[in-house]
């Protein structure tokens, strides 16, 4: 082996060794903001149940006030495959819309910028959004093609562009799907904010976020947008090779809260994933609460509804023990 060939290979070997050593170290997890966070876990066996009452119960138990606010509902609309469950179910979106209107929101809109597909309206059709949500055309904004404004200080970037419909919202409700993710371990309410990044500037996929780093981007988005609430659709989630090619997994829950870190940590516990081992949650611990002791569970306890999601081999180390 000559020097030209040896040096890069030696560099990679050293880097791999460092990564291996680093992964065995106990991660430092910030203690989070003062106080505790409320997270509601509400049972819902199917999409045919009275989801309005269930979401209403969860929102009220978390103490969220929305009167007079302009709300943007951000579902997880990624791709469509009739053989599995990729997207936030239309019934959950329709129910959330009704709840926030009932609670006195000044305006409720729905917005999404899918990361792969260009025809957002076609995806919305396939996911039965148009059929299920009355007045969908007037409520929906394609965030990939919305007007944009620059935001400074995003993940060390000089500026990052975001849709005006997002920037104008008083409250962004992350209507996520409970899924495993082949790059991030899990995709829940925090990762769902990837859809706020406009394709018109960053493309399909939003590859800039991959270059910033997936965990780093998740944290940066959640640091930029603090006016958030989460409703995670775990009635039927996805396990295995998520977020697109996994298999349906019935969990029968809706998980809600204003602290998205605490909501995602709770979802992980329900999925049989140790949230303290999920990289983006470790990094986000300064934004919210990861530890069980700092989360005031409302409704069901995560343990009582735990139903382990199948994990791909790369993420088998995330399994929650106990």
């Amino acid at each position, binding site marked *: 082996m000559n020097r030209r060939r040896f040096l890069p290979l030696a560099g*990679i070997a050293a880097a791999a060794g460092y990564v291996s050593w680093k992964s065995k170290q106990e991660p430092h997890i910030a203690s989070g903001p003062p106080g505790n966070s409320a997270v509601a876990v509400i049972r819902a066996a199917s999409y045919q149940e009275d989801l309005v009452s269930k979401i209403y119960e969860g929102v009220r138990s978390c103490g969220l006030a929305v009167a007079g606010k302009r709300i943007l509902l951000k579902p997880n609309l990624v791709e469509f495959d009739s053989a599995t469950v990729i997207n936030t179910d239309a019934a959950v979106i329709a129910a959330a819309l009704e709840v926030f209107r009932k609670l006195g929101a000044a305006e409720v809109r729905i917005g999404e910028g899918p990361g792969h597909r260009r025809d957002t309206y076609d995806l919305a*059709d396939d996911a039965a959004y148009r059929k299920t949500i009355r007045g969908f055309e007037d409520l929906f904004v394609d965030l990939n093609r919305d007007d944009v404004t620059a935001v400074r200080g995003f993940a060390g970037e000089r500026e990052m562009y975001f849709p005006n419909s997002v920037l104008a919202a008083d409250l962004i409700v992350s209507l996520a799907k409970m899924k495993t993710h082949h790059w991030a371990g899990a995709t829940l309410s925090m990762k769902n904010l990837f859809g706020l990044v406009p394709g018109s500037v960053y493309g399909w996929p939003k590859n*800039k976020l991959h*270059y910033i780093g997936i965990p780093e981007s998740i944290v940066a988005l959640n640091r930029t947008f603090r006016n958030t609430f989460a409703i995670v659709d775990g009635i039927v989630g996805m396990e295995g090779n998520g977020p697109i090619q996994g298999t349906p997994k019935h969990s029968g829950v809706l998980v809600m809260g204003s602290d998205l870190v605490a909501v995602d940590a709770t979802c992980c516990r329900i999925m049989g994933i140790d949230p303290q081992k999920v990289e983006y949650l470790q990094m986000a611990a300064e934004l919210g609460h990861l530890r069980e002791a700092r989360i005031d569970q409302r409704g069901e306890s995560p343990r009582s509804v735990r139903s382990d999601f199948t994990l791909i081999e790369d993420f088998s180390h995330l399994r929650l023990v106990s």
Partner: protein
Amino acid sequence: MTEVDLKSRLEFLKRTQNADGGWGYFVGKQSWMEPTAYAILALKGSSGSEDVIRRAWTLAQSWQLPDGGWRPGSQVQDPTWVAALGLIAASCLGCLDQVAPKSVPWLLNMKGQESKWTVRLASYVHLLKTDVNVTHRGWPWHPGNSSWIEPTALTVVALKRSLAWNSNGDVSGRIRDGEELILSRRGRDGGWNSGNPSVLKYDVPSYPETTALALIGLQGSANKDLSEPLRAVQKLYLESKSSLATAWLTIALHCYGVRVPPGPNRSAPTDVLLCALQAIGHPSGNFRFLGPGTPA
């Protein structure tokens, strides 16, 4: 689509032009390079559109940066993939000499980060989680990112059309490399998705719009048998429900001499980009501007 449909789409574009000369993705929204460029292509040659096009081109040119890159709109400062659209629009308007001297070198200088030696090395020792071939240089959506099918296909078209302005070996070499990248990323189902035919050894399905764009980029490729991808496009055309996908598939099929009827319109009625693409894909439309052109 009938002649009346074509006329109504062209009238829609004329009627919805913003005061600054451009078009938003939706009527009344901020002007963006993408809908503006496709509106120029759609309207070129139609009666009474000279002033509309002149104003649109003046705005589009204002988005070209001193180094040759193009911003996607007034509100964004960074250059992006739309440089290819600037060059294609210039070619369609017969004014390559105004923009090509800077934009062609800018595009030649741009390449996906996966072609860097570090990534090639990581691929060589199987550290990458995707199976993409990293030996070819394509184009990213945003500088500093990886190559993807759509920006690569559009840039290949733009560079092929730029040969009418100035033909040199560097341009031809990058065109061939771009074509090779497109071909190397074709999925097992015969088409293309955004650029990852498989992830973690799982096949990822093709998308109709990206498959159409890939085939558009491959027009005029020497010694390439494209009969199988063309069959994939025809199959997707019959299966696809998406208005946008059907518009791109129609353009691709017309570019290859296959005449097809228009598809359904399920998108928002104020969607300017869709309207422009449907007009371009009309049998009497300007789909030829997305062809390789005639080398000088």
